[in-house]
């Protein structure tokens, strides 16, 4: 679960990490009141969407005075913001963060994340933070220094100081940097985070660190330990995807015309690859989790049947020990009866209860194109979509 910037900053502030003074606003009137309350002539108005690249996309406005802040908020609220990470359709801006703009003498990059190779928490720090850090890293124009934190919960202060030196901080700043890292280390563990990223981390004229932006991703699997944080879930993602999640379907909307119904994440990725290899365009990614019932599967089919862009449906199922093929067949049958719609449906069934699933398709009166292997099914589905 990703926290919005203002939520992430509130969490960091709770650990004694400095963030700009500010407040979230839902209307331009709110923004005006907040801006007046801040009493600063240099303000930032920042669109709160859960995607990076906001600065370059015009989602962060630096303004002078409360009236300009209200105007900026009015322009951003309700608009759709398309950044490099949202895709062309963008995300609707429903709230903005109004905060004091901080004059910084330097901007650094700092993050804590989990290194899957070593199985440890790792700090990444860079002498230059910026909006397009990912691109610059890929192009080799920026570099990050890393410090693995080991399994102990205590930070090795000497190593933290060395890291500070490596990114060019002087002795006094290095000590403050180590303090900051200690706080972040505690926050990371206590929040069950998988990522805390501060980019940029400002160094002010008075040599203080201020988190100008903050990104926190929490471990969804650990939310049961954090009911307070789970309640913050402010999902500005695709509504359909969020509802599908509750129905035990990992569903991601894509822009093609071949609807996919697949059990298992690996097989789901494999099916996307095959549809693309067959020169088709998938309308979605779907991974039916093992806990899904046939009614959950019916919900997944309904999403596709109700999507006018979907011209054919490809069902690629390998019945496993937990989820036999007939559950998927029942799902399609129920969805067709409920919606009264149908769509050319190509199926590839293998594994547990494949035969029984064919029988169920017949029972429901579903006319499906039954293919012996995945590749034949993928090409047939693509041909049907383009017919």
């Amino acid at each position: 679960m990703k926290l919005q910037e203002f939520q992430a900053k509130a969490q960091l502030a709770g650990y004694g990490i400095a963030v700009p003074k500010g407040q979230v606003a839902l209307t331009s009137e709110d923004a005006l009141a907040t801006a007046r309350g801040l009493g600063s002539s240099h303000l930032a108005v920042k669109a709160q969407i859960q995607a990076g690249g906001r600065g370059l996309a015009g989602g962060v406005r630096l303004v002078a005075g409360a009236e300009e802040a209200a105007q900026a908020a009015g322009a951003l609220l309700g608009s759709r913001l398309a950044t490099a990470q949202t895709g062309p359709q963008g995300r609707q801006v429903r709230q903005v963060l109004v905060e004091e703009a901080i004059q910084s003498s330097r901007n650094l990059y700092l993050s804590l994340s989990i290194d899957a190779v070593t199985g440890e928490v790792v700090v990444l720090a860079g002498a230059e933070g910026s909006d397009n850090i990912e691109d610059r890293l890929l192009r080799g124009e920026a570099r990050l220094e890393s410090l693995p934190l080991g399994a102990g919960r205590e930070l090795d202060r000497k190593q933290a100081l060395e890291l500070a030196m490596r990114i060019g901080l002087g002795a006094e700043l290095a000590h403050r940097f180590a303090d900051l890292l200690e706080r972040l280390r505690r926050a990371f563990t206590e929040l069950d985070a998988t990522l805390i990223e501060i980019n940029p981390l400002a160094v002010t004229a008075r040599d203080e660190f201020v988190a100008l932006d903050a990104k926190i991703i929490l471990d969804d699997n650990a939310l049961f330990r954090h009911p307070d944080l789970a309640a913050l879930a402010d999902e500005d993602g695709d509504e359909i995807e969020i509802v599908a999640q509750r129905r035990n379907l990992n569903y991601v909307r894509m822009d093609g015309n071949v609807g996919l119904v697949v059990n298992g994440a690996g097989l789901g990725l494999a099916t996307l690859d095959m549809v693309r290899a067959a020169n088709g365009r998938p309308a979605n990614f779907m991974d039916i989790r093992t806990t899904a019932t046939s009614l959950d599967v019916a919900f997944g089919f309904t999403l596709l049947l109700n999507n006018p862009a979907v011209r054919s449906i490809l069902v690629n199922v390998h019945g496993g020990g937990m989820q036999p093929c007939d559950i998927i067949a029942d799902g399609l049958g129920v969805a067709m009866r409920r919606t009264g719609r149908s769509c050319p449906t190509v199926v590839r069934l293998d594994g547990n209860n494949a035969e029984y699933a064919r029988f169920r398709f017949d029972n429901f009166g579903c006319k499906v194109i039954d293919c012996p292997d995945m590749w034949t099914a993928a090409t047939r589905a693509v041909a049907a979509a383009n017919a």
Partner: protein
Amino acid sequence: MAILVDHNTRVICQGMTGWAGTHYSAAMMEYGTNVVGGVRLGKGGSHHLNLPVFDTVAEAITVTGANASMIFVPPPTAADAMIEAIEAEMPLVVALTERVPVQDMLRVRDCLKGSRTVLVGPNSQGILAPGLCKIGVMATGSERKGEIGVISRSASLTSEVTAQLSRAGLGQSTTVGIGGDAIHGLSMRDCFELFLRDPDTGGVVVIGEIGGAEEQELAEFVAETRPDIPVVALVVGRHAPAERRMGHAGAFQKGVGDAQSKIDALAAAGAIIASSPHLVGETMRKALQLKAA
């Protein structure tokens, strides 16, 4: 033969008295696995599936001589169950639980350092040595006894590839689900090394996907050891939706998480890349034919 399991494998199930533990323990016994007991704190002394239930793993080992444990404990206490088994020096622990908090797995990984336990999983479908031993939740029926080892991060693709291999006339020595989570026990590389040391494994299929760097780690090992058995690799996720590929700066820095760099690394190391997910079995068959010629 097989890796990780053999004729002498004696399995206990941690969490056997729950729904999943009951169902899959029974299915394993039906397959022929020697399940010797269960563990559930508070139910020690009782019986379940006609097997003794113990309060602790250590006690179960002492009484039954168990040398493998399968974990079906729910996510909040799954890591503690793994740590209990590791501390009791259980030689093999197969964790099937999905959705274990990642920071709990950091504790488990730390506990594994220097231990005698091989941990497989979590979020694994388990281990299947056809005709010999099944520890896990996979469907059976399409597997055949034979000489191909399968290492996989995906349960669904393991079933698929197993069926393809059997159709191509190739049986399997062992299929191992190393787990779909970022932090887990036995790595691809270490699993591969076990297959290399197994005289009865004559080829290995590796099923990888986007994320992490295990495929590259394996590639390095393959390049170093230049094994004389064919290694066929399938890496899926080349066309995953953009947001699933998008990470933070940490992921970008290494430039290793995407499917293409994994494929490139494995190909450069001498692995044969299956050109499509439906061709894995055939690719292995041809590779073995070529080797025999």
